[in-house]
């Protein structure tokens, strides 16, 4: 298992953002669904080793992120796209991706090829020398994806990766993460259930800091058909049915 969470909790003052989550995730693509404030971003930030858990035990890629040496090794093999992508407007696309490849301590001789490959994968080749300040929101999102995948990570964390992408790019991205999921653990936090249906082999649904569902997209769809979910698509009905059940239980 690349991710092992055992009763992980994260508090911000009195607010419990992540509440006793236990989760094991191996190779493949896991879609992380949930309403706003469910704790998805906090969970991803803990998986990205940015935020230490308040309690519980976390193992990533077989290492303990509390230990500085282990944490550094995890980060070398990690790709992360945060919800709000910060960037330096004066950098070009190549420089930005190269900058992160170097900060992830890739062997210098591998960097140029890896940067070019990552930029090609997100279809930004023609804009490789453009300054980031000249790019549209969707293109910037693709730059963010490129920096996340440049080091061919074993653990990839995407927070709302398709926000701002046009339909064509969204389809291309789904294909990309399906491909990445062949060899790595990919976690995609999203509000868009169609992304999950199209790209994820597994789904986890969070509500009030807890994981209230874990299964395949087909299982999620089945819950919608069996329950009283609302929505236009089968996955949406499953999503809303589980959330309604979780709310009534609490």
């Amino acid at each position, binding site marked *: 298992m690349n991710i092992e969470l055992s009763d992980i909790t994260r508090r911000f003052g009195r607010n419990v953002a992540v509440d006793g989550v236990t989760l094991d995730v191996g190779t493949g693509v896991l879609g992380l669904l949930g309403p706003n404030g469910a704790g998805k971003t906090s969970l991803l930030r803990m998986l990205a080793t940015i935020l230490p858990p308040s309690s519980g035990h976390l193992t990533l890629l077989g290492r303990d992120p509390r230990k500085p040496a282990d944490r550094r090794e995890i980060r070398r093999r990690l790709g992360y796209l945060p919800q709000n992508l*910060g960037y330096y407007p004066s950098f070009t696309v190549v420089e930005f991706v*190269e900058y992160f490849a170097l*900060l992830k301590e890739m062997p210098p001789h591998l960097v*140029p090829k890896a940067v070019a490959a990552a930029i090609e994968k997100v279809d930004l080749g023609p804009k490789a020398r453009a300054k980031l300040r000249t790019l549209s929101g969707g293109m910037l999102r693709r730059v963010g994806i490129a920096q996340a995948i440049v080091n061919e990570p074993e653990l990839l964390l995407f927070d709302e990766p398709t926000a701002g992408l046009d339909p064509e790019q969204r389809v291309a991205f789904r294909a990309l993460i399906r491909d990445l999921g062949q060899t790595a653990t990919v976690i995609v936090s999203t509000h868009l259930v169609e992304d999950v249906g199209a790209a994820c082999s597994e789904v986890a649904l969070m509500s009030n800091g807890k994981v209230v569902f874990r299964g395949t997209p087909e299982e999620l769809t089945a819950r919608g058909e069996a329950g009283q979910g609302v929505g236009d698509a089968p996955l949406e009905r499953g999503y809303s049915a589980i959330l309604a059940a979780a709310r009534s239980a609490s």
Partner: protein
Amino acid sequence: MTAVALSRPARVLRIEIRRSVVLWSVPLLAALFFFDSFRTVSGFAPVWTVRSSVLTTNMIEDFGPFAAGLAAWVASREGRRKTGDLLAATSRPAWARQLCALGATLFWLLATYLACVAAVYIDTALQATWGGPPLWPIAVGVVEVVTFAVIGFTVGALFPGRFTAPLAAIGGFLLAFIGYHAALGVQPGMSTYALLSPSTAVPLGDAGVFYHVAPDLAIAQVMFMGGITVGLLGLLTLAPVFRVSYRGLLAGISRAGRWLCVAGVALLAAGVAAAATAFALAGTAKPGVSGWDIPALHDAASDQPVPYTPDCAGIALPVCVQPAFSAFLPAAAAALQPAAAELKGLPGAPVRAELVSDGNGTRNTQGMLFAGMPKPGVSGAPPVYNFNSDNGMAPLWGSPAGTDNAGWRAGFQQVFLSAFVAGPPQAGADILTPAQQAVVTALMTAIGSPAPQFDEAFTGNGQVVGGATQAQIAAAAQRFGSLSPAARHAWLAAHLTALRAGTLTLNQLP
């Protein structure tokens, strides 16, 4: 070197250098340098020590606030641009990443600073006739720019925000301003800690010419600012510990890494120790032959006068100067020849004029008066007229071969004739008596120069000290000047002793 051969830090540094915001400020810094530092230094004596003083005064006032502000802007970008999470998930430690950003900032700042230093030194080399470029001012200036930048960077990294950079720049300006004024006020017998500020008054015109400038103060300044820089780098290294210290210090240390904490504490301790040592050393500074000496750092062997062979010119009166002032020798010799001709054959008339040290070891290189500057005067046997660079040739610094030097020429002659008429320099004999003023006025008129002014002799109500008015002196001078040269010469030969003693009145002049 190819791109592939570069190491990881070097490649990050290359990106940072290429995209550094400081690059956009280079033209502004260059313009500031030209209109402030370069134009100021062009009016200084073309003496290496004097010209190089601008490296740690005007240039730091130009560069310091910018260095602090720009570094703060660069350091705060992770907060402003919200790249914190993205960067925090990378394996390279934050201190290494910040070091590259700081390195790029320093690269452009120091490249610009050193280019400006080169401009000053090339200009000086084209005009200087003696000596070579001093290196200590460059070292002090470089360390000072680095210190300003590191202060700004630390502030920017710890308190990121859009107002951090302007506040850091204002802080840098105030720091330089306060340091400058504190250093100006240092006098022997007082607290000397303010000498740690390299920004201070312009040195005397012959600083470093007759005596070597001891590096004592420069060493202490480099140690002090270097200590602050190293200490702040330690603080930056420890910043991650402080960020999570709300969970307890041990948790913070555990999160940041033990070795990183050890390195941070070691840097902080080393920096504080160096700065504290330099502070203590500055407190022991004493005025020496060529500036401030710090006993623990001072090499007494450097107190010996600098040997030199003077350059001389002039027939009636050979005028000799230290080779550093050779450019001004023709003007000085030409000015003194007619005045010397008027005095030829008189008892005590100088046989030679010689440029001597401005302070003879009584003033420091920062231009502060310690024990009364020796007056120019005629002394010795055979009599020699001693003059110094500051009150002899300072007006010429900007244009040694200029044509608009009539005012300087008259003043130079007046000082020479006054020195002869007043006799050997002695304490309390600064002001000429009315009779002496009248004689000098007559001699000046005789050699074709304008009538001199003795402003220092007048009181507020226009009365001359000694009981004569300006009109009475002018009348006596006209009377004495109307004598034939031979008669004037004969009278002076007969009455010079009484004239010098101050016992003659205006009415006793022929």
